[in-house]
């Protein structure tokens, strides 16, 4: 079954962002022209203003806002930095160029806007995200780390020089790096019925080799540990634009469980953004209960593993159901198992036996 994607979604988004930047710019221009010190408010990102919204199932910022005023000398520098970043983002998106956090830090020096260090510029980038309510990828600032995707999905590039060019993501067996050009492309066609996100590159390769994409009509995504934001954006788009269910496979430990949770409901750090979560995503394994059930070889949990379990038990998202139950089992058995543990039963055991069972279970989750 081939699906037609909603056309031009990415482009529309770009246009909205450009308008938003222009609107802010014009407001500040007018203020200066009248001799007023411009200011604007940014949602406060302090811990006390981060709350969990049960309805949309993610952390969001509360109603507190901080006023950034150019009159206040202690804020003037940060104000100017933010203005520069908006200006720079506007150029990036206008010229369809991409950049990284480190790039931004160095670029500032061409405009006599000084950042003490990269963490200061990173912080301003988060400020702009909060003002625009858009992830930095939307204004073409991309993370360094790359994860990969493989499966039957035809995309159409929008980046300069490739406009209109199409690629199918199953054409290359190593998968496609989830970079700016892929993230900004339009989805044109797919036969997939499910998206499988998997924590580890090694398993991703195994899945490609075993043709999981064909056997289960799946798009396989390697998250490379904790999923980068571009990967999370991609997952969201695959779910929202193509209406594909998303399942997640991780190692059988507390960190794996949380990797799945972040894909599902985001992190407190990104509480100012709402484009990064797939609330319907399902964690299908490896569960703590699977360790017993499949008699997997295990490793004892360390002190810090156990501490992490107890910390997460205080998180509102771990207060019920599967999430709570599995955490409690981890604490009880004090042991963990990796995805590779299934190799005990043969290299293809995980794709032949475990995965089908889990995909079946996912339907009822």
């Amino acid at each position, binding site marked *: 079954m081939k699906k037609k994607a909603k056309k031009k979604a990415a482009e529309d988004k770009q246009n909205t962002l450009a308008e938003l930047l222009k609107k802010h710019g014009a407001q*500040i221009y007018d203020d*200066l022209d009248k001799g007023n010190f411009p200011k604007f408010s940014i949602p406060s990102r302090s811990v006390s203003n981060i709350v969990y919204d049960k309805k949309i199932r993610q952390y969001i910022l509360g109603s507190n806002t901080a006023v950034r005023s150019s009159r206040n000398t202690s804020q003037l520098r940060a*104000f100017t930095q933010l203005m520069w970043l908006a200006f720079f983002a506007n150029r990036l998106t206008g010229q369809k160029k991409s950049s990284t956090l480190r790039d931004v830090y160095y670029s500032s020096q061409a405009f006599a806007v000084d950042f003490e260090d990269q963490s200061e510029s990173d912080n301003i980038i988060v400020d702009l995200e909060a003002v625009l309510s858009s992830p930095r990828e939307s204004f073409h600032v991309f993370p360094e780390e790359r994860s990969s995707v493989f499966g039957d999905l035809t995309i159409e590039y929008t980046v300069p020089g490739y406009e209109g060019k199409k690629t199918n993501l199953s054409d290359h067996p190593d998968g496609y790096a989830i970079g700016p050009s892929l993230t900004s492309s339009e989805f044109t066609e797919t036969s997939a019925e499910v998206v499988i996100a998997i924590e580890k590159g090694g398993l991703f390769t195994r899945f490609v080799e075993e043709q999981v994409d064909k056997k289960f009509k799946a798009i396989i995504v390697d998250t490379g540990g904790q999923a980068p934001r571009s990967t999370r954006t991609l997952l969201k788009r695959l779910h929202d634009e193509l209406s594909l269910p998303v399942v997640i496979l991780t190692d059988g430990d507390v960190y794996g469980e949380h990797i799945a949770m972040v894909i599902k409901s985001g992190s407190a750090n990104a509480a100012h953004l709402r484009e990064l979560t797939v609330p319907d995503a399902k964690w299908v394994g490896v569960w703590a209960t699977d360790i017993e059930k499949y008699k997997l070889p295990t490793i004892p949990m360390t002190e810090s593993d156990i501490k992490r379990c107890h910390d997460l038990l205080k998180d509102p998202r771990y207060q019920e159901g599967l999430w709570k139950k599995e955490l409690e089992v981890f604490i009880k058995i004090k042991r963990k198992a990796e995805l590779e543990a299934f190799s005990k039963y043969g290299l293809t055991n995980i794709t032949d036996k475990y995965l089908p069972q889990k995909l079946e279970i996912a339907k009822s989750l």
Partner: protein
Amino acid sequence: MSSKETFNQISPSEFFYRNRDLAGFSNPTRSLYTAVREFVENSLDACDHGGILPDVHMSIKAVDAEKPDPKQYILKVTDNGPGIESKHVPLAFGTVLYGSKFGLKQARGMFGLGATMAILYGQITTNKPVIVKSGTDGKIQDEYEMLLDIQKNKPVILKHETKETAKTGLSVSICLEGDYAKAGSKIRDYVYQTSLITPYATITFDDPKGEKYRYTKVIRTMPPSPTIIRPHPHGIDVETIRRMLSDTNYQIPTVDDKMISKVRKELGISNKNLNHSEIMNKAQKKWKTLTRPVRVVIAVMSFLKMDFEKLSKTTIEDVDIGNKKLTYWDFGESQSISVDMDPESEYYKQIANTVQGETLTSFLTKRFQRVGNTTAQKFAEYSKFKPEQRIGTMTNQELVKLTDSLQSFDDFMAPDPSCLAPLGESPLEKGMQRFFEPDFLAVVQRGASAYSGFPFVIEMGIAYGGKISSRGMKVYRFANRIPLLYDEGSDVVLKVVNDTDWSRYKIKGDPPLVIVSHICSTRVPYKTVGKENVADRPEIERELKLALLSLSRKLSSFMSKRGQAEAAIKRKNLYSKYIPLIAQFCTELAGKKKEPNYKKMITEEPIVEEES
């Protein structure tokens, strides 16, 4: 004790010679410094006393510059004061314990002994004479070269010349053993600080190395001079009471030629010879204008029935109030004669009062400051003396009891500060302005206060910034216009300054801050004989604290204004740096061609309105 042991009386010179370290002449370093102080202070006191703006010139020259210290130096101090009358010069500079400062008012030195000590020290270390030049009338200058006869406490005049001059003033030059290498910095500090607290004086100093220090006067008005006043009851001791009783005014005066001419002068009959009754009539008419000694002489004459001619040939031997008899020796007849005194006569009362002394109440009201009749009566009740008891009849025990009561009675008024000579706020301010050229300066003179019957006044100044180096807080301490250079650590002023939490007044780190503290009192409560640090009497500490408090509040408001001004400049700089950038960025963002008109935002003084 052996019966062969002999007892000798030693002269005051001999005593000081043997105990010279008591007076600050313990070694060549200290001695040179002390000698400088004694002469400079004498000169300044003399000028103050004469109401003359002081010009004091001091020089120290090595006799042989090549020799290493300690060595002989010639110290010379010249002033433009009133000078000393020729006949007093030998005694003033050639005798120990001959002074002009035995009185209750504020002066730098107490008795003028130090100068003689310096001369004595110079003589015993170099065996060279002192050279004193004095001019009192602007016509003639007397020049003496003298040595002290230590055993006899007498001057030995080697040379006496007179010259014509147009100036008044005194110049003293001595040769003494000293150590300028070690004493130099203290002497320079002393001259510097003395000039600071004496802004109406010009003080110069030529040092042995050829350096010349010049401090010219900043103001041309003398601060008001102090008056000599009667003592306060709290500040009295038994010995003082005894001296007050035996004061000449309360004895039958010696009737010599000098006394007789004084009587004639007061009666206005200097050149007339009147008989006894004519004299008595004249005296009756002039009674109210007569001084006490003259009245006593008249009273005595009334019973002797003599004129001046006869009186000059007699001497009063005894006044027996109990038997109402007056006994005199008649030189002409070479015999002792007694006459009866009529107890009803006013003259008898005059004589009785003189011999027995005044009543307690009269003694208190007349001989002490700020004691009225009511207070005197209350005191009599408190001390359990009869108000009419004659002071002259008191026994030793009674005198001790009287003294104790005087010290402990609480209802006496506070001491009279008119005997004090504070510098005044304006001169202090001008002096500090010249010396420190600060950004901020404030001075305060507290009202008079007292401790143990001694009045005192605190003056204080505080200066900040400007040409003051920022090597931390510096405190200049003065007492009665004398700089206190030694023993800083244990001084009450330092204690008060150090107890202050300066961060409350926006003073941090090593501030460019100077504090000048001046304590004026008839008796400064020094902690040690060295007279370099003031003891922490609660009354004095309190006044110092209040003075410092009022000054530091002013400093604090200056500091915050300065802070605001600095912040405004900083703000302006920041605006100038960042607003153009913001303008540049938003112009492109808004898609405009021309930059917004923001110029006035960075040229105009911004309004202070911080947002939190």
